[in-house]
């Protein structure tokens, strides 16, 4: 039982990160019906920027508690990523807003190649270690262990998600976003400035990505210019699993995907009598995803979309 509990904890930590990144995909999709493939790369930039700040602070011998150093890193990374998200939308997506649906997909891929290689030019090809500024403590619960960093990740992403839900459902900006998602034309007629709402969506999504990037690099202890690709892919799958365009769906999808991967890796051997091992972890995750989509073609919480060409 303790093993099962441990696997669920592992999955929840992983899933929190997925969920945070998935929110960025889903927000953009909800409004523009566009898969922002460069989102994973924004996460990477967030990790890199914060790491540069944290390393500089840790190396300079400033007398600051570890948490404060990391917080400074986060607070630097968020505006940088927000600016980046804003610029990407202006340069690569806005001119194509009325182009065929797949055109922005190609610019997104182009942007993500550019960001990767620009990051390589700036920060080098090396894997960059996260300085050991955070004190790790382990806690035992029912035979399973959890560290303070893991708890922080779960709590922080939960807070970010609650904040976002509040923003979308309770504020003026959120109402404008929901209106734009439903029908840009009508929202425009009602006096909503569509362009600034879309920009705001990118900016908020990128801010969340920055937080996720810092979490990933702090938790796993490293950052690399190529790290955004896999993370982005997983988060995108999570968003689709939950029903892309749906905020709660993205969170649920992220957490579920994390737990599925974790349980899959842990139990797939026992389930198949040793025939398949943990190397089929991703197969298992994709299999569940396909199964869900076959029975619920719009994801777990997605609404039935109107048919589009």
């Amino acid at each position, binding site marked *: 039982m303790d*093993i099962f509990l*441990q*696997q669920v904890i*592992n*999955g929840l*930590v*992983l899933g929190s990160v997925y969920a945070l990144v998935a929110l960025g995909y889903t927000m953009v999709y909800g409004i523009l019906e566009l898969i922002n493939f460069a989102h994973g790369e924004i996460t990477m930039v967030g990790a890199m920027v914060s790491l540069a700040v944290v390393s500089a602070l840790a190396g300079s011998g400033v007398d600051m508690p570890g948490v404060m150093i990391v917080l400074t890193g986060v607070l630097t990374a968020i505006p940088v990523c927000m600016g980046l998200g804003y610029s990407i939308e*202006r*340069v690569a997506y*806005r*001119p194509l807003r009325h182009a065929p649906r797949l055109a922005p997909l190609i610019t997104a891929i182009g942007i993500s190649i550019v960001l990767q*290689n620009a990051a*390589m030019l700036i920060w*080098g*090809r*090396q*894997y960059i*270690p*996260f300085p*050991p500024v955070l004190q*790790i403590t*382990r806690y035992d619960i029912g035979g399973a*262990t959890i*560290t303070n960093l*893991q708890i922080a990740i779960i709590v922080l992403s939960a807070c970010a998600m609650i904040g976002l839900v509040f923003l979308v459902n309770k504020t003026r900006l959120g109402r404008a976003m929901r209106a734009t998602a439903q029908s840009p034309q009508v929202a425009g007629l009602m006096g909503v400035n569509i362009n600034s709402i879309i920009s705001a969506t990118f900016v908020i999504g990128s801010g969340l990505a920055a937080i996720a990037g810092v979490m*990933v690099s702090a938790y*796993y*202890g*490293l950052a*690399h210019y*190529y*790290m955004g*690709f*896999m993370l982005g892919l997983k988060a995108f799958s999570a968003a689709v699993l939950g029903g892309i365009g749906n905020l709660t769906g993205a969170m649920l999808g992220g957490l579920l995907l994390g737990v599925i*991967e*974790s*349980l*899959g*890796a*842990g*139990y797939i*051997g026992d389930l198949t009598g040793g025939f398949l*091992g*943990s*190397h089929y*972890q*991703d197969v298992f995750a994709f299999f569940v995803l396909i199964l869900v989509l076959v029975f619920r073609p719009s994801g777990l919480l997605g609404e039935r979309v109107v048919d589009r060409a």
Partner: protein
Amino acid sequence: MKQIRPLIIALGCALALGCGKKEEAAKTEAAPGAGGAAAGAEELVKIGSVAPLTGPQASLGKDNENGAQLAFDEANAQGIMLGGKKAKFEIISEDDQADPRTGTVVAQKLVDSKVKGVIGHLNSGTTIPASKIYADNNIPQISPSATAIPYTAQGYKTAFRVMTNDEQQGAVLGNYAATALGAKKIAIIDDRSAYGQGLADQVATAAKAAGADVVAREYTSDKATDFTAILTSIKSKKPDLIFFGGMFPQGAPMVKQMKGLGLKAKFLGGDGVQTADFLSIAGTDGEGVIASSPGVPVSSMPGGQDFVTKYTAKYGEIQLYAPYAYDAAWAMINAMKAANSSDPAVYMPELAKVNFTGVTGQISFDAKGDVQGGAVTMYQVKDGKWQVLETVKK
């Protein structure tokens, strides 16, 4: 949008120019050789260096290139005479993106640029298909890092490597785990890359032969960062030792996560783990980790310390295979010296006979082109540094 348009157009023009230039470039390439001969004093010797310079393994690829570059810079400074002319070595560096298809294209490109030899490729997956092209064109190839057994087993007389293959290193590691480290129950993880899987399979065989039990066999990928799930299921099997076949970007977070889960088994890795970056990423969690590296310790070799000083001054910290690339380059230079020619057909027999003291050990090749001896050195992390435990001779 309006403001950036001129910029975009300028870039586009630059691109178009770049494409237009290539024909001229191809023409001018032939010129220096002729010019050099006319001067009578210098001979340009082009050497190819291939490794992934973009993508996840770019740091290792650049490291290989730098290692080779250092060797050829030294050779240029020494003023080596080949056939009465002073040899001027020039590296032509190509990016194979760790992709087998791109690997064959750049291999052909190097052949076209009339290189006299190739140091590369980095991965077994690109080295093997490219080796056919070098063999067809009779150009010697020395891989500093490919470990897959089939590379030298194809019967090409152009294929060499200065790195022990999976079988040599795996046998030492498996045996060491079961005997010297006294592990009875071993868990094995590999990253499902050609390198990780090849090495892990050999370790499993050798460990079983030495009387240990493989209690768990788990797998991850060479792009993963989260290993808590497989580590948790390994924990329930209570092994004394975990062997990981893979590279440090996975190895270091894995060690951290072992600590997080309270998993106290020893951690053993191959040459992919024995890097400086492993230490900085794993931090204090890396203490006690044991990893192997083919050859003898660089510091114990004459000239080894000198190499490290020179390399770090020029390129920064050694990533992983730079010493091997350096030795590979010197093997090629020494063979050319012995043959008094940079003509591949003339110096290739000398390359097979080469025997010199490199920075990773005594370098000589067996009939297949594998490095002879196959000594493997075990290291352990103590006080944040890799300390030599012992060198195991097979």
